[in-house]
C-alpha cells in the first residue's frame, strides 16, 4: 500500500518535472505578483507615517505577504486541478475503478506530489526574494514554533484538498464544476488571508470569515510563524482545523459513495 502510494507520488513528480519551463515561469509570475504587493505595502506604511498597522510592523507584514504568497501560489493549488471532475465527466474513472488501488488515494497522492514539487521550486524562488529583502523579514528559528507552523501547514494542505475535492465530486451530478472551484478559490484567497491579514478587515467581516475553514489555509499558519497567537489559541485552532478536516472527509466519503451509485460511463 505504502509502496504504491510512493510510486504514485514519484510518477506525479516526474510528470510535473517534464514541464519545468512552464513551472519556472509560473513561479516568476507568482513572485512578481508578490513583489507588486510588497511595493504596495511599503507605500501604505510610508503614507501612514506609522510603524505599525493592524497589529503588524513593516517587517512582519512583508514576512506575512511572502509566506502567504508561497503558501497560496504553490501549496494550495488543488483549485486549478480538474483531474477528478475530468475523470468523472469523460468516463476515464471506469479505468481507475478497476485498478488495484483506490482512485481517491491516487488523486490525493498526485495532489500532494504537485504541491511538493511546486512548493520546493517556489521555496527556491522565494529564498532569492528573501535574501533581497533580508533586512525587512522576520525569521522564526525556534524549533517548537516551526514545528507548530509545519503542523498548521499540513492541516492547510489536507483541508484545502478536501474542500476542492468535494467540489470536484459534484461532477457526478453537474456537467461542469469549474465554476464552483473558481468561485471557491476567489473566496478562499481573501477569506484565507492570502492577500491581507484578516485583522485588517472590519470586525463584522472578520466574524464571517472566522466561520469558514479558509482561515486555516494561510492566516492561521502565518500567525503561528510570526508569533502573533497565544498558545491556547494555537491548540484550539489546531483542534478546529482537525474537526473541519474530519467533517470534510466525511462529506467527501458521502459524496463519493452516492456519486459512484449514480455513475455510468459509455464508450468503446
Amino acid at each position, binding site marked *: 500500500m505504502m509502496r504504491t502510494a510512493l510510486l504514485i507520488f514519484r510518477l506525479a513528480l516526474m510528470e510535473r518535472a517534464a514541464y519545468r*519551463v*512552464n513551472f*519556472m*515561469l*509560473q513561479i*516568476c*509570475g*507568482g513572485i*512578481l*505578483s508578490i513583489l*507588486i504587493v510588497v*511595493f*504596495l505595502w*511599503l*507605500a*501604505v506604511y510610508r*503614507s*501612514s507615517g506609522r510603524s505599525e*498597522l*493592524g497589529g503588524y510592523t513593516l517587517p512582519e507584514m512583508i514576512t506575512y505577504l511572502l509566506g502567504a504568497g508561497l503558501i497560496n501560489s504553490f501549496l494550495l493549488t488543488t483549485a486549478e486541478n480538474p483531474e477528478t471532475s475530468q475523470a468523472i465527466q469523460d468516463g476515464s474513472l471506469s479505468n481507475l475503478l478497476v485498478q488495484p488501488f483506490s482512485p481517491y488515494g491516487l488523486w490525493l497522492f498526485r495532489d500532494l506530489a504537485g504541491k511538493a514539487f511546486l512548493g520546493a521550486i517556489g521555496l527556491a524562488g522565494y529564498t532569492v526574494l528573501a535574501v533581497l529583502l533580508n533586512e525587512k523579514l522576520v525569521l522564526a528559528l525556534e524549533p517548537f514554533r516551526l514545528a507548530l507552523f509545519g503542523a498548521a501547514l499540513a492541516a492547510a494542505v489536507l483541508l484545502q484538498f478536501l474542500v476542492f475535492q468535494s467540489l470536484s465530486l459534484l461532477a457526478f451530478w*453537474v*456537467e*461542469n464544476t*469549474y*465554476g*464552483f472551484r*473558481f*468561485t471557491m478559490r*476567489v*473566496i478562499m*484567497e*481573501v477569506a484565507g488571508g492570502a*492577500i*491581507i491579514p484578516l485583522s*485588517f*478587515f*472590519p470586525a463584522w*467581516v472578520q466574524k464571517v470569515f472566522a466561520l469558514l475553514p479558509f482561515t486555516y489555509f494561510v492566516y492561521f499558519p502565518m500567525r503561528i510563524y510570526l508569533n502573533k497567537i497565544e498558545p491556547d489559541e494555537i491548540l484550539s485552532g489546531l483542534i478546529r482545523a482537525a474537526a473541519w478536516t474530519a467533517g470534510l472527509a466525511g462529506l467527501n466519503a458521502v459524496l463519493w459513495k452516492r456519486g459512484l451509485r449514480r455513475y455510468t460511463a459509455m464508450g468503446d
Partner: protein
Amino acid sequence: MKRHLRLFMLLCKIGLMRQMAYRPHFFLMVFGKVVRMALLLLFFQAVFLKIDRLGQWTFDQVLLLFATFHLVDYVMSITFQRNLSFHLPALIQSGNLDSRLTLPVQPLFMASLEHIDMMDFISFLPCLGLLGYALYRLDVAFTWLHALMYGLLIVNALVFLFAVVLIIATTSFWTTQSAGLARVFDDLTRVGRYPLDIFEGFWKFFFIYVLPLALISQVPSQALLGALSPGFLLYAVACSGLLAVIAIRFWRTGLNNYSSTSS
C-alpha cells in the same frame, strides 16, 4: 470592414452559444468574477481604513483607477487576450492554424477574435457600474475634453496591450511555447491596479518608460482628473502606436516563418 464587423457579431453569437451550453456553470463563473472584484474592493477599503491617501491618491481616485484597470482588463479578456496568449500557441503547435489561414479573412483577425468570451462580457457590466459609482463619488466637474481624452486613452491602453500580447504570442512561431510568458505578463499587468506612486526611483521609471504599464489605467485616470500634461498624452499615444507597428511587423515575419506540423 463591414464584413469583419458582421463576422465579429457572428463570433460573439457563437461564443455565447458555446458558453451558455452549461448554463449553471456560466452564471456561477460570472458570479465568481463579480465576487472577485467585490473582494478586491473590500481589500482596498481595508487598506484605506488605515490611511487617508496612497501617495497622492485618495480612496475615490484609487476607485477610479481600479475601475479603469478592470474596464481595460475585461475588454482585453473578452476579445484578444486568451485568443493570442493561449489559443494561438495551441493552434501553431497542433498545426491547426492551417485551416484558419485558408479562410477569406485577415489571419490576425481570426487569431485575435476567434473565441469571444461572453462570460467576461456579462461580468464586465458590473464593472461599468463601478466606474459610474467612482465618478459619482469623485464629485469633480468633468469637461467633455477630459471625457474624450479618457476614452481615447482607454483605446490607447488596449492598443498597447494588444501589441505586447501579440509580440509574446508571435514568439510561438519559433518556440511553440509562449503561454508561460503570456501568464507572466498577465501577472505583471496587475501593476495597473495600483497608483504608480507605490513605486519609487528605478521602478517608477521602469513602469513609465521601459515597460509603460502606466498606460493601462494610470494615464487614462489622470486624464479624466485633469492631471495629465499634453506632453505625456503625446508620449502615451506615440508609445502605443510605435509598439503596434513593431508588433504587426513581427507577426508578419512570424507568419512567413510558419510551417505546419499537422499530418
